[in-house]
């Protein structure tokens, strides 16, 4: 079994959707999460506040600095994520497809590091 991060790439430059659309989206993604749980693939799920709620703490010569805003200033920010546990990339992609259709956003599929694979 391998673990994958399914990261929702949210385009924050788009205006916030109306509340009923957001509710419908949450209902759809919640259904996918329930399916993951039933299939034994679910590990974790979390939705995030917009990146304007972010703060970055950086190391700087033995001390740290604190800045307002996200790590990288781009249009697409991490909007939320699932962590799943499946056999291979094809199974992860099958879940990602359902997630993308449910939330209407691109999903980045990224494997967790597996030390036993390093040679």
């Amino acid at each position, binding site marked *: 079994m391998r673990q*994958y991060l399914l990261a929702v790439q949210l385009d924050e430059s788009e205006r916030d959707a109306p509340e009923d659309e957001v509710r419908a989206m949450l209902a759809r993604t919640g259904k996918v999460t329930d399916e993951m749980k039933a299939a034994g693939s679910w590990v974790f799920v979390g939705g995030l506040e917009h990146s304007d709620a972010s703060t970055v703490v950086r190391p700087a010569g033995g001390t740290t600095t604190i800045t307002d805003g996200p790590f990288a200033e781009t249009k697409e920010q991490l909007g939320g994520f699932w962590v799943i546990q499946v*056999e291979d*990339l*094809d199974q992860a992609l099958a879940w990602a497809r359902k997630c993308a259709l449910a939330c209407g956003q691109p999903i980045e599929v990224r494997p967790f590091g597996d030390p*036993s694979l390093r040679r």
Partner: protein
Amino acid sequence: MDVDGIYRAEYGRCVATLTRLLGDISLAEEAVQDAFATAVEKWEKTPPNPGAWIVTTARNRAIDRLRRESTREARHAQALLLHAPDEPREVGPVRDDQLRMIFTCCHPALSPPARAALTLRLLGGLEVGEIARAYLVPETTVSQRIVRAKKKIRDAGIPYRVPGEGELPERLDSVLTVLYLVFNEGYTSTSGELLRTDLCLEAIRLARALAELMPGEPEVTGLLALLLLTEARRPARVGPSGELVVLAEQDRSLWNRELIAEGHELVRRCLRLGRPGPYQVQAAINAVHTDGEATDWTQVLALYDQLWRLAPSPVVALNRAVAVAEVHGPAEALAGIEDLDLPGYHHLPATRANLLSRLGRTAEAVAAYDEAIALATNDTERAFLAAKRAVLS
């Protein structure tokens, strides 16, 4: 056969089988290369089944190597190895291994250039230098692409398997595209000489393997037929001094009758299945071109109309215009391509130039030839266009 010939013929098969046994493409490649090095030393004459000899030797070498290493992973792989069946000789599993390898190399999670490079390396047994020459990129670029692709297969967990029914159409598409690209790069090279015969033959060899592995997929049969019917005309495509000879002016007696007969038979076979797709229709178009003494353009146009319904694209529209010109005249053909948007594609201005000159609009034709010459990347096509232009002015 010499070891070089056996290497080309058996490399892909052996790597595919070893990948199943070892679960790791890079390890499999190292083991197969070791075994070929041993073959060069040991073979006085070729064993009756060189492929099986290589697989057995590679497997034994891999076991030795894994015994010497002591990580947990190595012991795990070693255990798997020791439980593998003795002689991977049976045709069934070996074919399945290659099919799994084709789908792994052409996985949509890999970039398209990486898919082509990996397919040529792992299935065709081509050296990095050969692939680099074919695609006109530095060797380091090709080897980086291959290394990164193999790393991604391992790190991202791309499975070594044939996709299930649901995913198959989408995945098969990527496989067919790669084989078609390899063939086209050989048939009309990006630069230099017109033809790179070795790439054409490699694409045909892989398409034959795929067609044998998946006889029930009409698009696979269609692609093989398309490649064979195109390849059959190759001997007539270049004249005595290396110049390009267009279809209408080719000496048909130079065409390869055997390939044409096989291609026609395959076209009939796949069309009977009643699931037409773009490759089958393109094969049918080429079957018409190679049927009898002259092309039946009405039939070609009807097939282009069908192709347009299945897979509309500006390139299809442009090729269809050539048939329109033959059936309804150059004016109607020209009207059909006026709004096409194909930036950088020299066939568009070249086709316009041809139609304009047939309409007697010489000055415009010359300008279109100039545009086409500036865009053409291979020497033979440039010379062909320059000759056409010279006749006009």
